[in-house]
């Protein structure tokens, strides 16, 4: 059923879009990658899943907590891997945040064990059938929440003072600083936002597969990086489109080729893109205007 697969692909893509957005926010603010975001998503998802399945916490509460946990972990990552690391060493934050990722994974497996955790269905009886097309209630939740978060972020960046400050810092931190923007606090805010997005994407991805594993952090980072490169580093709109594209490609590969080749095809797609169009599929000449 091609159409059904396409829909599933888009739904998978929306969770990728959130995590890619999360990476792109940090790239925008600091021109740096936070390699611990995948693990941030994982730890939020594990905690939320435990709360829902073992403590019977309502999904909505768990979801809000996943945002908070993600935000806190990202803020800690900022302090450990960015704030006090000399900007002279380009690779330092990459190595340091990879280190934070290792620590998070180890801590989670030591505290909660290395089992997969179940994320129970939220809307059991809801099912939409549009002709041959079936959309479950959970898929709808994923779609709506992801769209809502993306929309909120867009409004926040474009309509609020702090949002404007973020965009200002990501365009030119020095000038923004001279104009009285509290650059350090704005950067911290960016990390907090990106962490919250990562947390949400972790839980939503868990909801779509109904399980969460403590070893997915690295994979998540990898997928997000593929999306980010394909969409153009730091290009937020490009990232969303690329996320949907990769979601569709992965779903179709699993459906019609083989699950083993799921990631492979994406990697090849990205590699070819980089050779032909190194600036990413959706970035024009130089995309300050196209970035937000």
């Amino acid at each position, binding site marked *: 059923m091609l159409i059904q697969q396409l829909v599933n692909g888009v739904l998978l893509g929306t969770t990728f879009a959130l995590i890619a957005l999360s990476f792109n926010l940090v790239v925008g603010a600091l021109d740096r990658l936070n390699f611990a975001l995948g693990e941030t998503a994982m730890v939020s998802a594990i905690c939320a899943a435990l709360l829902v399945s073992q403590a019977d916490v309502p999904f909505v509460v768990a979801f809000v907590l996943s945002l908070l946990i993600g935000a806190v972990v990202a803020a800690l990552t900022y302090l450990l891997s960015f704030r006090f690391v000399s900007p002279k060493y380009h*690779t330092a934050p990459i190595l*340091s945040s*990879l*280190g934070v990722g*290792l620590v998070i994974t180890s801590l989670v497996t030591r505290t909660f064990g290395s089992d997969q955790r179940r994320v129970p269905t939220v809307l059991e009886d809801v099912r939409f059938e549009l002709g041959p097309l079936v959309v479950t209630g959970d898929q709808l939740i994923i779609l709506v929440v992801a769209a809502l978060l993306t929309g909120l972020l867009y409004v926040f960046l474009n309509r609020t003072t702090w949002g404007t400050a973020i965009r200002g810092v990501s365009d030119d931190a020095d000038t923004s600083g001279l104009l009285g923007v509290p650059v350090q606090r704005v950067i911290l805010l960016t990390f907090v936002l990106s962490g919250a997005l990562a947390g949400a994407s972790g839980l939503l991805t868990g909801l779509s597969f109904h399980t969460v594993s403590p070893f997915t952090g690295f994979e998540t980072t990898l997928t997000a990086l593929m999306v980010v490169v394909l969409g*153009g580093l730091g290009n937020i709109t490009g990232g969303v489109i690329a996320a949907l594209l990769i979601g569709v490609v992965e779903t179709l590969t699993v459906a019609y080729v083989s699950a083993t080749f799921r*990631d492979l095809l994406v990697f090849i797609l990205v590699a070819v893109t980089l050779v032909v169009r190194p600036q990413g599929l959706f970035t024009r000449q130089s995309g300050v205007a196209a970035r937000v």
Partner: protein
Amino acid sequence: MDAYTEAVVIKVGIAILLALGYWVTVATGKYSFGHAAFMSIGAYTASILTLKFDLPLELAMLVGGLAGAVIGAFIGWIALRLSMLYLAIITFAFAEIVRILLDGWDYVGGATGLFGMTGTTVELVAVCIAVVVVYLFFLSRSRKGLSYEAIREDEQAARACGLGVTRISVEAFAVSAAITGVAGALSAHETLIITPNLFGAPQSLLIILFVVLGGVQYFWGAIVGAVVLTMLPIWFDFLEDYYQITYGLMFVLLMILRPQGIVGRGTDRRINLGSLRELATSRRGGGGDE
């Protein structure tokens, strides 16, 4: 030398080779985040040759290095003309591709891997290290080595001096991949068994940690890092259970306290933060100077 000591010495020796190999690309300021892939390419190539074609290890090891160099040159060519962040992402992803491919390839045993490789001796490892050290010794004193350092210091200035920055970086990357491939071959014929998962991200990070801990400025800094990090879990058994946390924290602390590593001085040169965006969107040779 008893068997235990011999095993430890070989282990340390292979770590030194890995560190030295990685240092070659770091000398040009280019960090790979998937060097374990070149290790696995060398390991699998050599293992296939010794197991299925009965080639002597010495020859198989060189072919493994060559395979690493060829693939390294290709990956380098894709990645090195872009910015450092792209290089990080591409090498990171490349290692995953290699792992997935090996995992799905029945000829090399898929996820269960290959079994039965032997033949790595202390002498062989020592000879390899000696060759690499001699190479690096002369490299550090030559104009080629100087051009590596120039690229690490300032790529735009290097271009203005007529250095083909991309070509030189790709060459260094290929040499680095070759040495790593040889080290992978040696390690396969020491551990008896290899699986694709042995060469995942943790192994790549460990190689980086060797060099970053030791210091990137002089190649013997890499040796220091490799020896220290390999001996630590041997001296302190309890680290075995906590090695991921230990390595993770080491990265974090090191980057804050001493990003230049144990050996070497800090730099006080102004850094060209340029704009990543500009770098990312610049065409091949150009690059935004203004």
